[in-house]
């Protein structure tokens, strides 16, 4: 195995795990409300930008990260309250949330461009530097890639554990199945929905920081590509399925890095979306999505 191939695989897996994180963030709100926050990409960008900004103001790196995450969590509350809830209470189930979450993202991007400039900013080294590596079996493994991979996979596992093993996690799943029954059974549905948007925004923030760390820079348009890849990962794996999101994310990451390395980086998007279309045509429920369980 040559070094070039190997480095592409590691980069692909690492980037893919971030796509999986984004996909799971999308899944979270999909579970509770059947909606997606298309402003997710801008939240990633904003969180990464805020970290750069706060760190440049002399704040300790850990505090800058916490500050960035707090802001996106608060924006998660805003998104739920002002872009999702009005659309959901509208009689007949409005699709308005598609436009309003997208609009929220674009506004956020504009605001970021105004205050931080539209130039790419260098992202500081939060986790090691690009030069740090370990050697395993004669292969140089970038520590940054490894840490990003470990962080996103453990976040995904933690979330999965929460959803499967705790009663609150099960309530999230229950709301996705029958919100009215959840209400009647005394589950605080409103609170859980709000929580899902906050958690989803936090995941976006973490994904933003991790992507910026790998990529080295962040600019106002930075989240858009990421959320597209995250979305492809979610649909590829089966919308709403956590393991599917992980598999989908890794697949998208690997394929896009290999295509970028051996063919052309310009082909990454084309291949990713060709994959999405092929998947939707052949297996609409996704790789690991399950058809409905029911009996009349």
């Amino acid at each position, binding site marked *: 195995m040559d070094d070039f191939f190997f480095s592409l695989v590691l980069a692909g897996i690492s980037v893919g795990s971030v796509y999986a994180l984004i996909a799971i963030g999308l899944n979270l709100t999909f579970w509770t409300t059947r909606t997606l926050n298309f402003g997710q990409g801008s939240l990633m960008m904003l969180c990464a930008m805020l970290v750069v900004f706060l760190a440049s103001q002399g704040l300790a790196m850990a505090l800058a990260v916490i500050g960035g995450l707090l802001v996106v969590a608060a924006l998660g509350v805003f998104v739920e309250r002002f872009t999702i809830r009005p659309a959901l209470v509208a009689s007949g189930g409005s699709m308005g949330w598609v436009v309003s979450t997208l609009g929220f993202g674009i506004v956020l991007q504009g605001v970021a461009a105004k205050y931080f400039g539209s130039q790419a900013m260098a992202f500081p080294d939060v986790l090691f530097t690009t030069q740090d590596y370990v050697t395993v079996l004669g292969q140089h493994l970038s520590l940054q890639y490894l840490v990003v991979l470990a962080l996103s996979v453990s976040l995904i596992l933690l979330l999965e554990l929460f959803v499967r093993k705790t009663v609150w996690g099960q*309530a999230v799943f229950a709301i996705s199945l*029958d919100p*009215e029954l959840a209400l*009647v*059974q*005394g589950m605080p*549905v409103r609170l859980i929905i709000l929580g899902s948007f906050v958690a989803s925004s936090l995941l976006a923030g973490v994904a933003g920081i991790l992507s910026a760390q790998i990529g080295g820079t962040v600019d106002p348009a930075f989240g858009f590509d990421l959320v597209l890849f995250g979305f492809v990962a979610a649909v590829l794996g089966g919308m709403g399925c956590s393991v599917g999101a992980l598999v989908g994310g890794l697949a998208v990451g690997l394929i896009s890095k290999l295509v970028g390395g051996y063919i052309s980086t310009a082909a990454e998007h084309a291949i990713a979306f060709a994959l999405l279309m092929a998947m939707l045509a052949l297996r609409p429920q996704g790789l690991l999505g399950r058809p409905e*369980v*029911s*009996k009349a």
Partner: protein
Amino acid sequence: MLEVQDLHVGYGAVQALQGVTLGAAAGGITAVLGANGAGKSSLLRAISGIAPVTQGRILLDGRDITALPAPARARLGLAHAMEGRRLFRQLTVEDNLRLAWSFGARGVPLAEAIAEVHQRFPILGQRARTPAGLLSGGQQQMLILSCATIRSPRYLLLDEPSLGLAPIIVQQIYAFITDYARRSGTTVLIAEQMATLALKVSDRGYVLRRGRVVLEGRSEELLAGGSEDKLAANYL
């Protein structure tokens, strides 16, 4: 005591209830009868907080709960077995029970409560790990009742527990309901299309027609010959 006063329920232009007043005496079984579309489900849904009330009041032990959101009412001890086999179909039997218990009054520890369910309906014990959506109709109804009662409710609303079930299962379900009501002292309100069935187990009955109470009385009197014609007339 569960009281409903001059209740109006409307979905847009459609008025499902137009001034219903009734009471369910504490610790007793009260039947709400009526044909399809008479407003039985709307009444129960309004009581548990998932149907839009446009006028009137709902009182639990004298406390006005009309403005409370559904989960808050559930926490006051209201349990509602909805019509249409409403279960979390992808979740297992056990998970359905656990969720219902977790957000209920938690009268007894979970393990004990589940053991009680299994003793009452052994088939639910055997199928504990089966997704609820794969149970037979009768088993689903047993699970729905168990999910409602495992919450240790003070008020139990049952929407058409006999719907679509074989007569022998209906008997079993009704035996459970009467036995449960007597043992626990829970106030029960049953909406039912099969009038005689519900009147036999209840203390008091109300007949709804087009969103209004058209007949009410002690169940045995409604059952007795004199009212049979009236009853029948109101179903047509």
